[in-house]
Structures are given as structure tokens and as C-alpha cells.
């Protein structure tokens, strides 16, 4: 019987299917960071349990670390943040986990470094105590976020009891229009199906527009699967995937590469495989997209206007629109291009990759950030930062008036000092526009790196498709 990619990966990891209990699946890799792990390590110690497979764990610090300077990162002023970072250092040493510390050449946001190191590979099961673990699905891995008890469970057993999700294929066919990016695809999808539209499903993104994306673009899409409620998002591995993996630090070599490659090629969903749900989207319909409200499903085109509560189709949404407009300080009917911004945040596990920085640099080159705007670039990882500096992107950003920061999660969630002040409005390349997400009272608009860069220069949202001399390379 033809199988979906999800089913193949699931079946390859089924350890036991006990009667009357959830199936037990094997976890190939657990990624660990400072915020959701200390209690899991403590749990092991209290129960006198060992960490079963240190070789199937990788750890780094990302959520809490300052991004201002290398010095600030080594001497974190916030005592609770410092304690959390120190706890991870100590725990990794005690339990034998490979740890990429704050100034390590491989440090970065946990969802950046897995792929960069070649730890993330097709057909694997990957978990992390972080909802954006879905990012790794871009390689055809089954990857999902978990709670701290589950983090401990994986540490102790390298398995998880999991109820099997249903399957949902979202096919995006056609050619992406000029100026439209992977970020716009996923914001468009969430706008269509809603923030609980994929709850209970493992999503597979397919179609010619998805296949045409780089690995960076595919990661952006899978990253935000959770914003539609999905357990996981996956994209079939292909030559783009294999080329990305070839020669990475943790990629297999020699005969092992050949054997792995043969397995990877067997993973794509079989012809005729049946999904529990299907959705087809024409890439030509997608435009540069901007979120206007306080949930990632509240999005519209750059050509659009802030909607009215009267546009809502039911009473719950209507109330949601009213609350969102009030929080965002927006009037219904305002053209999106007339919304002025105060801050720009370019970074995060959604859009903090080299390709994102290149695209944004192309927009800002030779121009300057508007006098009313404060803008920052936070590369997602040390590797991205190094690469960008080699290409001279840091100089382009700094000349344009952007701050050039050290890698970390930064203003995506504001657990470190990078936060919005109450009422500040931010064009952000991150993934969540919840109330207070980037700082209490802060107002977040989710956009692509190109759109964020153009907004920084213009001082308000502007259609990147009309940008002078824009090369159209996404």
C-alpha cells in the first residue's frame, strides 16, 4: 500500500505498540537549550537515572543570551538568565552532552545549528523543548516540540509515547511571483487555514513552488507549521537537500553517505499515498504578506487594508478582531502601507539565515534607515554571522544604520534584554505576534526579511515589488 513520507518515518521509529497505550517511538536526536532543560536534568538526578544516549543529544544557549557584545554574553548581568546558562553548562558536562557555548563557532539558535552542523537529516525523528522544532521537517525529518517532562523522558529512554497524528498535504504549485518569499507562503497558508487549522496533523508541504525553494526557504515554512497548530511540518528530501548536507560536520561520509542517501531517496510519499486532508494553493495568488493583528492568522496583503471587525465571519472572531485592533492601536480601513513603524527586527529561527540577510542587504544597500526607526540584525547563528561578515553584509547593514548583533533568539521572544517598549511598533521577521510577545505592550507585525528591510528604510510598510533596483531574487 502506498505510504506517505510521515508514515514511513513513523514506522521506521516504532519501538512498541502496546495494547491500550500510546505507541512508543524512538527519537534519533534531541536538541537542548537553557530554558526548558534544567528541570529535566534535575528529574534524572532525583530518580537516579542516566541519560541513555548522550551521543543523540546536542545542546546550545540561545533564548537568554544577550546579543549586544561577546563580552556581555560571557558576563550576563541578569542573574536568573546567567544561572540558567550556567546550569546548562554544568548539566552538559555531568551528562556528557556536546555543548556549543555562547562564543563557540557553532553556537546559534538551536533550530539553526542542527541543520548547519548536518545533525538534522532526512528520515530522522528530532525533538526539542521548543515549539519551533518543526523547522527540521524541511529535511524530511519528523520533528516536533515537547514539554519539559517529555524532554526528561527522551533523556532517560530516547523514546516518547506519542499518539499518531493525522496527515495533511498542502500543495503549492506554480511559480512564486517576483518579490514573494517562503515567509509569504507560510503566512498566506496560516491566514487561509487559521492558527488551529492544522491541529492534530503532521503537514507535508509539496508542489512545484515548494520544490523550487532553497533549504533556507523550506526551513522558514516548516518553522511556522506550529503557528497553524500542526504537530509537525515536512518537506520531501531531494537534490537540494542532499547538496545542502554534503560535507557538513555531522554528515555521514564514504559508504555510510551512500547508504544514507539510498534511504533518503526512499522517503518521499509514494504515488497514490492517501492523506487525511489536502489543500491546493496557486503560488501566483500569493503577495508580500503582513500580519496586522495579534495572531499569526491575522494577515493581509501589502496591497490590503486593516480589516474591520465587521469582516469577521463569526462572533468569536469578531471579538478577537476588536481586541487585536485595540491592542495594535490600528483603525479598521487603514492601508497597510500607511502604517508607520518604530523598530525593525531581522533575525530568529524563522528568518535569521544567510539567505535572509542577503535578501535584506540587497534592499538596504546604499540607503539609510528612516530617522524615526531603530533597526537591528541578529544573525541566527555564529556561522551565519561569520558568513555574512565575509560577504560584507555587516558593513552594508551598519552603513545603513542597522545595529549588527551577536547570535541568539533575541527580540523574537524577549527573554534577553532585547524587547519592545509599550506601544512600540515593530516590523519583525520572527514567528509570533502575540500580545506582549516582544515586550509588554509591544506591537509586532510579521513580514519577510525583504519587507522588513524596506520598511526600515521607508519608515512604514511598503511594497517591496516596487522597490527601486530590487533584483527580485528571493
Amino acid at each position: 500500500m502506498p505510504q506517505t513520507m510521515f508514515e514511513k518515518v513513523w514506522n521506521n521509529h516504532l519501538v512498541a505498540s502496546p495494547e491500550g497505550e500510546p505507541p512508543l517511538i524512538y527519537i534519533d536526536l534531541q536538541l537542548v537549550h537553557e530554558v526548558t532543560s534544567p528541570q529535566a536534568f534535575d528529574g534524572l538526578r532525583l530518580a537516579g537515572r542516566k541519560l541513555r544516549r548522550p551521543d543523540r543529544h546536542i545542546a546550545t544557549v540561545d533564548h537568554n543570551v544577550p546579543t549586544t557584545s561577546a563580552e556581555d554574553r560571557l558576563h550576563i548581568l541578569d542573574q536568573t538568565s546567567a544561572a540558567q546558562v550556567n546550569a546548562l553548562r554544568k548539566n552538559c558536562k555531568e551528562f556528557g552532552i556536546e555543548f556549543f557555548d555562547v562564543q563557540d563557532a557553532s553556537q546559534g539558535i538551536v533550530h539553526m545549528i542542527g541543520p548547519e552542523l548536518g545533525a538534522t537529516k532526512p528520515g530522522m525523528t528530532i525533538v526539542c523543548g521548543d515549539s519551533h522544532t518543526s523547522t527540521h521537517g524541511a529535511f524530511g525529518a519528523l520533528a516536533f516540540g515537547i514539554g519539559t517532562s517529555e524532554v526528561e523522558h527522551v533523556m532517560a529512554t530516547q523514546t516518547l509515547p506519542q499518539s499518531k497524528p493525522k496527515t495533511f498535504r498542502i500543495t503549492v504549485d506554480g511559480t512564486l511571483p517576483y518579490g514573494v518569499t517562503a515567509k509569504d507562503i507560510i503566512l498566506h497558508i496560516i491566514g487561509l487555514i487559521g492558527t488551529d487549522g492544522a491541529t492534530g496533523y503532521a503537514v507535508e508541504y509539496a508542489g512545484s513552488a515548494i520544490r523550487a525553494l532553497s533549504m533556507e526557504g523550506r526551513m522558514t515554512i516548516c518553522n511556522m507549521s506550529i503557528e497553524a497548530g500542526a504537530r509537525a511540518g515536512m518537506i520531501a528530501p531531494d537534490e537540494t537537500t542532499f547538496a545542502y548536507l554534503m560535507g557538513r560536520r555531522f554528515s555521514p561520509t564514504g559508504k555510510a553517505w551512500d547508504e544514507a542517501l539510498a534511504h533518503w531517496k526512499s522517503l518521499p510519499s509514494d504515488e497514490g499515498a492517501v492523506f487525511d486532508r489536502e489543500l491546493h494553493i496557486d503560488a501566483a495568488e500569493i503577495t508580500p504578506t503582513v500580519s496586522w493583528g495579534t495572531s499569526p492568522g491575522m494577515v493581509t496583503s501589502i496591497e490590503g487594508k486593516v480589516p474591520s471587525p465587521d469582516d469577521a465571519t463569526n462572533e468569536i472572531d469578531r471579538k478577537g478582531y476588536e481586541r487585536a485592533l485595540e491592542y495594535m492601536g490600528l483603525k479598521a480601513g487603514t492601508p497597510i502601507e500607511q502604517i508607520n513603524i518604530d523598530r525593525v527586527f531581522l533575525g530568529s529561527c524563522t528568518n535569521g539565515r544567510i539567505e535572509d540577510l542577503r535578501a535584506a542587504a540587497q534592499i538596504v544597500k546604499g540607503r539609510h534607515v528612516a530617522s524615526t526607526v531603530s533597526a537591528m540584525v541578529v544573525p541566527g547563528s555564529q556561522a551565519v554571522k561569520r558568513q555574512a561578515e565575509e560577504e560584507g553584509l555587516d558593513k552594508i547593514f551598519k552603513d545603513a544604520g542597522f545595529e549588527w548583533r551577536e547570535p541568539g533568539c533575541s527580540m523574537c521572544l524577549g527573554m534577553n534584554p532585547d524587547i519592545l517598549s509599550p506601544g512600540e511598533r515593530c516590523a519583525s521577521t520572527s514567528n509570533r505576534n502575540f500580545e506582549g510577545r516582544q515586550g509588554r505592550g509591544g506591537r509586532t507585525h510579521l513580514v519577510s526579511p525583504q519587507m522588513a528591510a524596506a520598511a526600515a528604510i521607508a519608515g512604514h510598510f511598503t511594497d517591496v515589488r516596487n522597490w527601486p533596483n530590487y533584483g527580485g531574487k528571493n
Partner: protein
Amino acid sequence: MQPFTRITSIAVPLDRANVDTDQIIPKQFLKRIERTGYGEFLFFDWRYELDVPDSVMPNPEFVMNAPQYKGAEILLAGKNFGCGSSREHAAWALSDYGFRAVIAPTFADIFFSNAGKNGIVLARLTDDEVNTLMQRAQTPGYEITVDLEAQTVTDAQGFKARFEIDPFRKECLLNGLDDIGLTLRHGEALDKFEAKHDNEFWSAPKTATA
């Protein structure tokens, strides 16, 4: 995890719907490295007067601060309790404060799972049943009994309601079994699987060389 069979306790009537995990435990406490000690931060923004600078004064308006509810092990709440962020700190805070059971019309999914992993029984009753209990719980000394074995909520005035719970989760709560302990029963299957799986190069997170 502490086994749960049956408890009889006074109950705090928190008459609010959609209580989210940010309210149960605000984000600044996620930087702590302990699993315990969250009880004092439970419902932080509601429980304390925050406009009093440099001091944490209990807010006398918040129901949990009323002396008659001291020592309560049961929380009564409105629908969709525990919605929002996946932070397990919410379950830890409730448990650390001393709550063993929450009674509400509905619960959010992730919170439901996190609570179960921390020995907290979540009993889903109808709106009317929860309202009845909320009203009776205004009387000082009023007690409710949650019986997991029988899957009932009762009181001394003849109230009796049944709640549904997944048999697997019920078994875990009754016996105080944590999921790790349960998984270790499959140790033999796991060892066998792992021995085979470790030879599959595609499954290795770090460099595999043949």
C-alpha cells in the same frame, strides 16, 4: 509522581473562563531552573498588588487570598482552563501550591497533558455542575470529594457527578506511575530496536562512517 485515589478538600472557586498559562505563571518565572517553588508565583499578576512598589502585597480581592480557602487542594474554574503557552511551569505552579485537582467544563490540550504528567487530576463537569459547586464553595468549610477510582465528584449535600478520563491516564494517576517508568517496562523491545537502529547510518545525528 504522587498516586491519586480520592481527596476531600475545600475548593477555591475561581470563576473565570479562558484562564491562560501566562496568567497561571507569568513569563519572568520561566528563567528559574527549579521544578519546585513555583507555588508562590501561581496567578502572580492577580494574586499580588503590583502597583505597590518594591513589595509584594496580597490582593485582598483575589479569591485565593481569602482565609477560608487556605489549604485548598481543589480548584474550580471556568471553561478552557490552561489555554495558551505550552509551559509545563503552569502545572508545576498549581501542584507546588498544593492543588491536586482542577474541576472545569473544559481544558486546553497541552495543559491537559502537562497536568497529567504532574499528578493533577482534571475533572470535566458540565457548566451547570461547575456552577453549582462554585456557589456552594462560597460557604466557609464546604468540602468536595474527587474520587478518581469511581470517576466521581461528590459533596456532603448529595451532589454527585461523574467525569470521563482516558483509561491509560487514569491508571497512571491512580498508581502514581510516571511515563518514564512505564516506558522502561518496554526496555527489552527498546534494547532490541536500538541495536538494529544504531546500524542504520541515516539515523545517526553525528558523523557515521562505514
